[in-house]
């Protein structure tokens, strides 16, 4: 047996009883049949079982829901009972029942619906809990005399779902009302169009086979009534849109629509009353119906982007523990905290302000701004930024900047500003609208002149026909429809795309910039390798068992299935910043940095030291191990590359993209990763701050479109500036608001699929636009030639819409790989 090259065991992996993911070696409890991959999962499992909800697991199995790790953070949710929060998010109905909507992180399957909707059985006073799985929003209703929102949120958190306010209650209500109104408009327009078409069929039949004059007049008046109702009731949104565009002096697709609708309506009404000439009410009402459908799809698409932006505000802590002059700690809403105040940050909490530590020693997780998840030690005099999570001990901080003035606040502001600017007011169809109006009006004028010789009435009739048939119905339907279908397909593959407006930028290959930590790599420190005497691995684990240092914790991980031996450890001496020394099974063992080895006067081993040096150059952290005064082994720790990173980079390069890295990590580490992935050295940018990343994106953007791929807040500014930003992690993160698309599962391999799908979507949109414009051209030609009867118009219009519909539904945009259902 060769201990050095022995592969790491895979088959014996222990799986978490709550989420089914592999349990890290250090957390495996020997002999227990309940293993957890993290504390959150343990809490969730315990909470679910102790409340009699254990059927959740059976249900999940039965319904085929995929398991996910619990998202709980063990927060107290005290701010949910805060007066300011209540005013913004909680509604009280006349019966005294309070209602609120919360966004839940981590709901993903039918079994989650079951669990969340059963919480009223656990919490006394909670009368209703309804989960909307699509939006991941739960609507809660409770009796304030018996329950409060903090307790409810805590319980949901214990079940594994972190809760955030879903948005201001007034806003949510307004949006719901708007959605419902839009649906009702579609229904009314549909009914009116259906009936107008029935009447039209009778009238057309009457044209060929003869019809009683009284009935004909009656039918024409009836369809006039239906058509007028359709334009004036559900169709008035287009006039509102057109008026708005005129006031704002821009072009909007509503303008040609409003023009066609009003001309058709007026001409039809005049002809109906005169009882001669053509009427177009069937076409007009059908137009209104189809256009409203297109509008509906479009609104749905914009909704996702707005939702993500709202979540941004749920991220920053909403309350702070302020220490007043008397030394007592009071909880305050974050808006009332001012620079100069002393704030207490307890273990597990995120710091609400930018400031300086005045007392306490602790470890901090600064990943929100740096992207590096390695914990950092901090004590008196050290600065920390808002959003930094305090990991181990309570500290007190003097606030220097609060709210929007903090670094996090400024990043958020930046994202918000950019994201709002990004939401395009003028879409492609709108850009076409101006040309469209000009062409149509010109053609109508030409038609009138051509036919003026054969009489003013005929000229009017033909010009009107042209104006009506060239209403850009299919045009207004094409883009939203293709986009909605494509985005729906992408979501099934695990990618959430906010809108297709930016797809254009990835049609031709440009530059893809990856963040390193958490994007190309897993983002977590793990034990990668053990060079030298393998027997020492479990001894070192025993030696490091008592230490809280993050590196020691990793070394203390052991696999009890493979190493059942219990070691006898004594005389352990932790040397701060160097390592640890102690007696294990009667041997003197030391583990730590090279300095520690020198300090102890350890007999060197050149082979080992050389190997260690090589690994250190790759950006890995090496720990030297000496037994009885001789250097015996080297442990290699590092952040592992994702298994799919290399193949993703290869696929992108073969598709013609230039690949680069922008990272906050040291340049030599970035170089090492770039080398492994085959990325040119000049495209590997290390030591980048969030601002530098954003500048780098801007720089590359001057030459070609830039796709930025990242995670976390530190990439957000770059994501929002990129031609197309992709966040690799879901959940309530700032990158979500900044990115144009994000992955629901951490799989970089989705990126090439996303880029290919985006290109195909753009092609499909262009095809649909072309086809619908083609129909308009044909119809306009027929109208100019004077052979366009209302019957031809009535056939041509739905046929063009149906063609677009068919093309949109069958366009090969995003295609799921065979393996997924």
């Amino acid at each position, binding site marked *: 047996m060769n201990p050095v090259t022995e592969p790491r065991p895979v088959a014996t992996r222990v799986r978490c009883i709550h989420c089914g993911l592999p349990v890290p070696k250090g957390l495996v409890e020997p002999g227990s049949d309940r293993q957890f991959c993290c504390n959150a999962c343990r809490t969730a499992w315990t909470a679910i079982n102790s409340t009699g909800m254990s059927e959740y697991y059976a249900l999940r199995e039965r319904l085929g829901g995929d398991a996910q790790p619990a998202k709980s953070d063990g927060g107290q949710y005290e701010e949910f009972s805060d007066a300011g929060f209540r005013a913004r998010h909680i509604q009280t109905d006349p019966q005294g029942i309070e209602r609120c909507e919360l966004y839940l992180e981590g709901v993903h399957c039918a079994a989650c619906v079951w669990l969340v*909707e059963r919480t009223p059985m656990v919490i006394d006073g909670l009368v*209703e809990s309804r989960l909307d799985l*699509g939006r991941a929003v739960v609507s809660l*209703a409770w009796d304030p005399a018996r329950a409060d929102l903090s307790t409810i949120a805590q319980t949901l958190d214990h079940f594994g779902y972190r809760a955030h306010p879903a948005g201001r209650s007034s806003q949510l209500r307004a949006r*719901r009302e708007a959605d419902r109104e839009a649906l009702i408009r579609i*229904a009314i327009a549909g009914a009116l169009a259906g*009936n107008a078409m029935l009447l039209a069929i009778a009238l057309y039949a009457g044209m060929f086979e003869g019809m009683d004059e009284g009935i004909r007049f009656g039918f024409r008046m009836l369809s006039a009534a239906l058509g007028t109702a359709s334009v004036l009731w559900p169709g008035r949104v287009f006039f509102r849109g057109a008026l708005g565009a005129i006031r704002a002096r821009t072009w909007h697709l509503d303008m040609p629509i409003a023009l066609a609708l009003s001309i058709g309506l007026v001409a039809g009404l005049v002809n109906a009353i005169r009882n001669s000439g053509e009427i177009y009410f069937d076409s007009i009402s059908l137009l209104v119906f189809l256009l409203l459908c297109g509008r509906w799809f479009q609104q749905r698409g914009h909704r996702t982007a707005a939702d993500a932006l709202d979540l941004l505000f749920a991220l920053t802590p909403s309350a702070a523990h302020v220490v007043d002059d008397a030394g007592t700690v009071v909880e305050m809403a974050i808006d009332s905290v001012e620079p100069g105040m002393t704030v207490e940050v307890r273990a597990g909490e995120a710091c609400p302000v930018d400031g300086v530590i005045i007392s306490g020693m602790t470890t901090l997780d600064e990943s929100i701004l740096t992207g590096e998840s390695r914990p950092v030690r901090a004590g008196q005099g050290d600065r920390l930024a808002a959003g930094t999570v305090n990991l181990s001990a309570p500290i007190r901080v003097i606030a220097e900047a609060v709210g929007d003035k903090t670094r996090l606040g400024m990043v958020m502001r930046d994202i918000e500003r950019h994201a709002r600017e990004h939401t395009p007011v003028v879409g492609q169809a709108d850009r076409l609208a101006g040309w469209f109006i000009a062409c149509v009006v010109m053609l109508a004028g030409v038609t009138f002149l051509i036919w003026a010789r054969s009489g003013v009435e005929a000229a009017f009739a033909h010009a009107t026909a042209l104006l009506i048939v060239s209403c850009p119905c299919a045009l207004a339907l094409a883009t939203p429809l293709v986009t909605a279908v494509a985005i729906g397909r992408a979501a099934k593959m695990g990618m959430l795309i906010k809108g297709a407006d930016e797809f254009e930028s990835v049609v031709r290959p440009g530059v893809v910039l990856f963040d390193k930590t958490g994007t190309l790599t897993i983002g977590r420190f793990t034990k990668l390798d053990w060079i030298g005497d393998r027997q020492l691995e479990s001894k070192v684990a025993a030696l490091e068992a008592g230490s809280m240092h993050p590196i020691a914790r990793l070394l203390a991980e052991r696999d009890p299935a493979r190493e059942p031996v219990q070691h006898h450890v004594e005389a352990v001496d932790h040397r701060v910043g160097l390592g640890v020394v102690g007696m294990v099974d009667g041997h003197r063992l030391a583990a730590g940095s090279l300095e520690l080895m020198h300090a102890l006067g350890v007999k060197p081993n050149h082979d080992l030291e050389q190997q260690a040096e090589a690994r250190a150059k790759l950006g890995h952290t090496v720990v030297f191990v000496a037994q009885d005064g001789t250097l015996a082994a080297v442990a290699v720790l590092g952040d592992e590359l994702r298994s799919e990173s290399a193949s993703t980079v290869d696929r992108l390069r073969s598709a013609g993209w230039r690949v680069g890295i922008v990272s906050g990590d040291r340049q030599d580490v970035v170089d090492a990763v770039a080398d492994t992935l085959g990325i040119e050295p000049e495209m590997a940018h290390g030591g980048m701050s969030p601002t530098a990343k954003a500048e780098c994106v801007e720089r590359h953007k001057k030459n070609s479109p830039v796709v930025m791929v990242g995670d976390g807040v530190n990439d957000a500014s770059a994501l929002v500036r990129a031609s197309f930003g992709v966040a690799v992690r879901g959940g309530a993160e700032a990158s979500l608001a900044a990115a144009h698309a994000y992955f629901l599962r951490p799989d970089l391999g989705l990126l090439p699929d996303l880029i290919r799908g985006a290109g195909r979507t753009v092609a499909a949109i262009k095809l649909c636009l072309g086809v619908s414009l083609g129909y308009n051209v044909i119809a306009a030609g027929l109208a100019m030639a004077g052979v366009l009867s209302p019957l031809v118009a009535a056939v041509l219009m739905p046929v063009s819409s149906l063609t677009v519909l068919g093309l949109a539904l069958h366009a090969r945009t995003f295609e799921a790989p065979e393996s997924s259902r």
Partner: protein
Amino acid sequence: MSVLWIVIPMALLLAAIGVAAFMWTVKTGQMDDLETPATRILFDDDDVTSPDETDAVP
């Protein structure tokens, strides 16, 4: 053909009833979430926190 003067208003009335029914479903929130109810039906009867009862609250 004078029967048309009865039949057509009846047809329009029927359509109006249909639209009114749809408007009722929209206004009572039955169209707000089209995804979750499809999963709710999979739970056994005793699993459900009788959402229909809670829905009755105006």
